[in-house]
């Protein structure tokens, strides 16, 4: 069947199919209302005076410079560590690979601000390790500011780099490396000229991803940054000070590099890449592995990283279950009862409910969007596609800022309702699902759907009986991803919290900031428990259909 082209024609066909029309219109309304409209409001709120103010006061310039410096440093180390870690798992003969994969997975269970909390408990000037260093070596650890931030961001974002790089390493064909070996390349030369060259686009991609995440990170800079002020923290200050204009200016500045990275990823990297970034293992000959000596070094490296991560989780658990760890090590459930299992302190429960709702809505919406964009002809498709993907490039801090600035005044007021939190989470996660599902839709042959249509099914029936079952795996995977991200998000929702809907990540941050460390730790443990529990239930239901605990 040859499709007729042209706006008029597609509009006519759409009007004949009311259920599709409803889907298209709803999608447009939602995206325009929550993506395009807030963007416009933020740009108009920023105003010339505020731009002038931003560039005239030294405080802001310094924050910008600090942000650039710290994000670049953290991204660099996170990428290097992620690369070595992934290389050890995929190219060496070391023992305990499964364990190392598991270790790189666990930081995803906790909000990145938990790394900041654990860091304070270990390396803060009153922390465990700094205390020990002081009493044994008389060395005074002072890691507040850039050094601490650098370490914490490296640790909390290295799993992201590791995963991105893993995808690339797995897609490198061993055949090429063997060919190079036959031509005389050995050891480091082989690594430098072939493996690293082929992995480079992925490595750059990982670097950029980590960099924009650090750029907009809010919790860790606020906890550990000390005097080292950063843009995301300054935005928070201006929102508190009731200066939405200044906050908007800084928000826009935060977005620019993120958009640049987004553009680079889409245009430059895809053209210059030597291998695809699908993450599918490449079949072929057996991969050449590293020498015994290198193995030992890699094993030591991965062990050190693992110890670091394990100790961060261990100290958090110790604080959660003792009266006041370090001073009074009596076991107690008091903290858990007070801040996790109390009707007056529903933060963990709130997180769970809001994350579930938002993840379900995000996947459902992504599904609808992917369906109409791939399958239905209608005018304005480019715009819809663009505004559906756009939020992926917007830092969480900016999304929260835009929503609070837009919906606390003006014609639509949503401030103070849980809806705004759900929407913010949805906007951040929906694009990921949308991209994945668009790809899946394209793989499902259109002729199957056409057959159903010919047999008399309307588009709703086709959708529910043919398309969705075929997409189940992608749907569940995206739901799990969105859920985990939602549970742990802080910067996206920090502006949107209401007293009724305090969420766990915010509680951890608040308690950590006011020094109530045992409560912060208790909430963190409760949050991880809730995430694990939910994932366990999903795993029980879908069994082998979904990969959650397979590393």
């Amino acid at each position, binding site marked *: 069947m040859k499709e007729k082209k042209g706006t008029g024609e597609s509009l006519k066909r759409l009007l004949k199919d009311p259920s599709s029309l409803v*889907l298209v219109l*709803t999608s447009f309304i939602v995206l325009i209302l929550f993506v395009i409209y807030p963007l416009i409001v933020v740009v108009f709120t920023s105003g010339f005076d505020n731009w002038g103010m931003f560039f005239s*006061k*030294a*405080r802001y310039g*310094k924050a910008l410079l600090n942000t650039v410096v710290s994000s670049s440093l953290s991204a660099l180390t996170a990428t290097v560590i992620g690369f070595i870690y992934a290389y050890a798992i995929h190219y060496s003969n070391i023992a305990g690979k499964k364990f190392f994969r598991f270790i790189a997975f666990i930081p995803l269970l906790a909000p990145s601000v938990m790394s900041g909390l654990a860091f304070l408990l270990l390396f*803060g*000037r*009153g922390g465990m390790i700094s205390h020990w260093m*002081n009493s044994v070596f008389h060395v005074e650890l002072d890691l*507040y*500011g850039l050094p601490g931030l650098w370490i914490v961001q490296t640790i909390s974002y290295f799993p992201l780099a590791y995963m991105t790089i893993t995808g690339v390493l797995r897609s490198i064909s061993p055949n090429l490396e063997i060919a190079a070996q036959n031509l005389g390349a050995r050891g480091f030369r082989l690594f430098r000229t072939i493996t690293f060259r082929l992995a480079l686009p992925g490595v750059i991609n990982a670097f950029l991803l980590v960099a924009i995440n650090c750029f907009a990170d809010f919790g860790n800079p*606020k906890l550990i940054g*000390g*005097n080292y002020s950063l843009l995301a923290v300054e935005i928070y*200050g201006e*929102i*508190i*000070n*009731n200066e939405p204009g200044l906050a908007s200016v800084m928000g826009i500045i935060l977005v620019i590099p993120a958009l640049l990275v987004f553009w680079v990823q889409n245009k430059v990297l895809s053209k210059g890449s030597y291998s695809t970034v699908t993450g599918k293992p490449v079949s072929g000959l057996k991969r050449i592995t590293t020498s015994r000596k290198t193995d030992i070094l890699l094993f030591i490296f991965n062990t050190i990283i693992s110890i670091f991560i394990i100790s961060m989780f261990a100290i958090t658990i110790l604080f959660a279950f003792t009266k006041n760890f370090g*001073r009074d090590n009596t076991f107690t459930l008091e903290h858990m009862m*007070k801040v996790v299992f109390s*009707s*007056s*302190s529903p933060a963990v*429960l709130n997180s769970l*409910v809001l994350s*579930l*709702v938002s993840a*379900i*809505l995000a996947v*459902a*919406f992504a*599904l*609808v969007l992917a369906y109409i964009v791939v399958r239905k002809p209608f005018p304005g498709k480019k715009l819809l596609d663009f505004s559906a993907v756009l939020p992926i490039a917007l830092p969480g801090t900016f999304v929260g800022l835009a929503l609070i600035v837009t919906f*606390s005044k003006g014609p639509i*007021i949503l*401030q*103070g309702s*849980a809806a705004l939190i759900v929407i913010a989470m949805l906007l951040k996660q929906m694009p990921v699902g949308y991209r994945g599902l668009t790809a899946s839709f394209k793989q499902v042959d259109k002729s199957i759907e056409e057959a159903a249509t010919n047999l008399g099914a309307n588009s*709703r029936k086709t*959708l*529910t*009986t043919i398309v*969705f*079952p075929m997409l*189940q795996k992608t749907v569940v995977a995206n739901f799990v991803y969105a859920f985990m991200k939602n549970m742990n998000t802080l910067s996206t929702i920090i502006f949107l*919290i*209401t*007293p*009724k809907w*305090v969420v766990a990540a915010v509680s951890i941050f*608040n*308690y950590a*900031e*006011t*020094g*109530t460390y045992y*409560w912060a730790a208790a909430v963190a443990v409760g949050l991880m428990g809730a995430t694990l529990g939910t994932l366990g239930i999903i795993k029980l*239901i879908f069994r082998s259909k979904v990969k959650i605990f397979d590393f």
Partner: protein
Amino acid sequence: MAARKKNNGSIIILAVVIVVLVGGFFLYKSGVFGGKDKEKITVYSIFQEEEARKILDKFKEETGIDYDILRLPSGEAVSRVQNEMLNPQADFLMGGPADSHEVLKKAGALEAYSSPNASDIPDNMKDKEGFWTGFYLNPIAIGVNEERWKEKYGSDPYPETFKDLLDPKFKGEIGMSDPATSGTAYTAVASLAQVWGEDEMLNYMKQLLPNLKERPKSGIEPIQKAAKGEYTIGVTFLGDQLKIKNQGNPIHSIVPEAAGYEIGGLSIVKGGPNTKAAKKLMDYMLTNTPGEIYTQSAYAVSVKPSVPIPQGGIDIKSTKYNSAYDLWKAADQRKDLQGALKGLR
């Protein structure tokens, strides 16, 4: 949104369970279940959450009114209540310096209520029209970690005045919260501006900056960190210092000349979801029990003469604090001073 039907029984069951649970939870939150005996009050607390929860748990025991609480630094609480004036989220604002409440009163965000229990509170510690009522009194103090002091400065005398803190030997050894967001630090600088004049205060702060290790958002943090040995000196309210000292930390407190003080206030948000319960809470707060709970754990001085000075607390009448501190003037100047302070750094 399209219905997501699947040919898979377990998914449908899961979906139903989730919908029921989530729906139930939302209904529970909005108070549909339980009716009157499940009454709830929403509190913005500028107190440390631990203390606020202690009091609110007692209140819950006595009245059966449950609570939602969000702890905020005072600056944040003020802008939150102001921003929410069209659609108030909270019923009650607990703690925070009186000038914050004064800002909200001027903005028309508060409900006037003169509790019968407020009659024995001195007139300069409550709003005449009843928009806010004082709860405790607390001067700014310089808190020194005695152990770290000994390591760093040996037997040098402790700083006695604000200007002593300018000594270059204290570089990176002082913590003071950011006057632009913290009520604590703002009280300190507003009092200095009243005693010294605005220019000298700004000049002083500019000179002080190099010595500051950090300027956290929340007022209590500097002394917590000083106590942990992260730095030597924390400028905070005296009550916070005494509290930490009584936990067994080596803290020595000095109330310097020209030290401002906060009157911790209580107020009722106008048009909040449960104003009736808020008035009950106000009456309850001004009985002796909350006063004792708070002064004992926060080591502040109650505004009520009937509440005793807690064990380990000190009588501030014996110190040289700025007794003429004009908190109404401080509230008026807040925006200007904070704007000028932001220009530093």
